[in-house]
């Protein structure tokens, strides 16, 4: 089954000025995809549509077996929370919750993720994932006391708890130094494999590309950009 299947999708805030036009994009379940492209190429818009934050103006958007273009905003939000893990470039954590509470939050909000935990209790699951990512010593610390690298590892933990079927990482390594980038990427790919989650990794840094089995250039698949360049 496909994890993401976009057909003839376009997105525009204003008429006649589409930001994104994609003929077809198919990502199979379990794939590890490297999505790249310069800023302004439509990466952000594409991710917004896949995550269900933005609604495609036209076309069909199927993500993890659901047709997002025919779902209400609330249903799309639920779908995202229950089936997807999301990692930002930085500031991934709620500042007023502890590390443990941050990791556990998706399971509190979504019963489906709570059901899929492998340990017998939520605390046990948080401890298991924390150990896997080598962050168990920070669990009870306030988020603000963590370094960026530590915060990003906590973000992985929160993204993969409750085994979501799709993990989207949006430039998660760009605030890390080279050594930490390698380490972060290795961990992310490993835990996604263990959870059998599809991984969409977005970056403009092509040096990380080699770790991924499939590469997609957004500027190549986005026809809106091409027409825009011509019109300018």
């Amino acid at each position, binding site marked *: 089954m496909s994890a993401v299947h976009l057909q003839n999708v376009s997105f525009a805030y204003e008429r006649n000025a589409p930001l994104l036009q994609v003929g077809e994009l198919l990502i199979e379940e379990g794939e590890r995809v490297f999505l790249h492209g310069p800023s302004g190429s439509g990466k952000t818009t594409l*991710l917004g549509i896949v995550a269900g934050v933005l609604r495609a103006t036209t076309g069909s958007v199927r993500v993890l077996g659901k047709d997002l273009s025919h779902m209400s905003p609330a249903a799309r939000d639920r779908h995202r929370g229950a089936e997807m893990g999301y990692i*930002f470039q930085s500031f991934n954590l709620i500042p007023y*919750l502890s590390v443990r509470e941050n990791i556990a939050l998706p399971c509190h*909000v979504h019963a489906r993720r709570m059901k899929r935990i492998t340990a017998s209790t939520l605390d046990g699951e948080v401890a298991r994932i924390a150990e896997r990512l080598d962050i168990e010593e920070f669990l009870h610390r306030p988020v603000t006391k963590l370094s960026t690298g530590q915060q990003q590892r906590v973000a992985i933990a929160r993204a993969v708890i409750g085994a979501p079927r799709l993990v989207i990482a949006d430039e998660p390594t760009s605030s890390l130094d080279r050594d930490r980038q390698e380490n972060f990427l290795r961990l992310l790919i490993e835990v996604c494999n263990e959870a059998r989650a599809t991984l969409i990794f977005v970056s403009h840094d092509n040096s990380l590309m080699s770790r991924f089995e499939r590469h997609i250039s957004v500027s190549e698949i986005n026809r809106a950009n091409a027409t825009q360049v011509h019109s300018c």
Partner: protein
Amino acid sequence: MLVLLRLAFASLKSRAVTTSLTVFSIALSVLLLVGVDRIRQGTQEGFSGTLSQTDLVVGARGGSLPLLLYSVFHIGTASNDISYASYEHFRDHPAVQWTIPFSMGDSHRGYRVVATDDNFYEHYRYHRDHSIAFTDGTRPEGIFEAAIGSEVAQRLGYHVGSKMVLSHGLETVSLLKHADKPFTVVGVLAHTATPVDRTIYITLYGDEAMHIDWQDGTPPAPGEEIPASKIRKEDLHIKDVSAFLVRTRSRVDTLLLQREINTYRNEPLTAIIPALTLQELWSMLGYADVALSLVSGAVLIVGLLAMLIALYTALNERRKEVAVLRAIGFHARQIFILFVMESALISAVGTALGLAAAYVLLWALRSSVEAQFGIPLAMVGISSRVSIYICVVVLAGALLGCVPAIRAYRNGLIDGLNAQ
């Protein structure tokens, strides 16, 4: 929902300083609102309590307000006197329990002199059931004896044994003085926070004695004065009084007697029910009440604005937080609820704190406030006005929370998941 509530709590806790300052400012507003409300009600009660347990005030034919003003508040003068015969007629009326006669017209250094009899010390009541008490001395018995109100004693430095010369008329600097017949202070009255404090009480005989040698309102010619030492009670005949208070045996008697007095054939008289006229007078003074309410309302608005500012300034820092919550699968509406919940929590806690503080303060201060200003601060439950205030504060708080909530909601949509 429970998750949202826990998030709201945690978020407020993390901004402890701003949160507690905001809670404090709201509590202060509520404290002021409730305090002003209590004082307002207390003032009204204190005012209507100037005279208690009196069913009728009787004077010469005239308006009800002037009658109340000169007989109870000692403002203005009586248009006419009542003959002592008429007074006796109603004093001995079967429907009457007691009467207190007042005779006025003299003063001492700006303070009114009121001639009355023992019934005043016996039956006069204010603030529901307080009676006249003495801090020093006894009630005046002799012709040239006087009891003075607490303010008179304090301001003029008088005490038991002080001598004073009363002036004819009400001017502070009077040309006509009863210099030949000085009065001796024999009693100082306890503080009442009513016009009683500013009054000098003498006996009806004393009033008569001062004017015994006067004829048609003019003092005796030199050489014709009758010296004080030669006046004896038995020689004095009380001719008239200015007004008198009546306590009837029952409510029905009050109305019947009022009608009887107002239609009394032998003399044109007016009887008023003081409680009603006091009410009337208070409603004329109502603008002070409105001003107090306006001020406390303004204070509340300032308190709520402080909260709005606090929530709004926190908003920019919270854009990332909103993006994270959206990524975890929170719906924009839930984020809206989170913000509104926070402001509702702040205003609810602030209101509760303000109420608690108000009642603690009232409880602590009520006896001294009542003694000092004559404002009885009843420890009653939350009045309907206060409960309206509470609802308004909490509702306004929640509504104000909508302003940053709408911003967050919009930002949430615009930023999508990508606020950096």
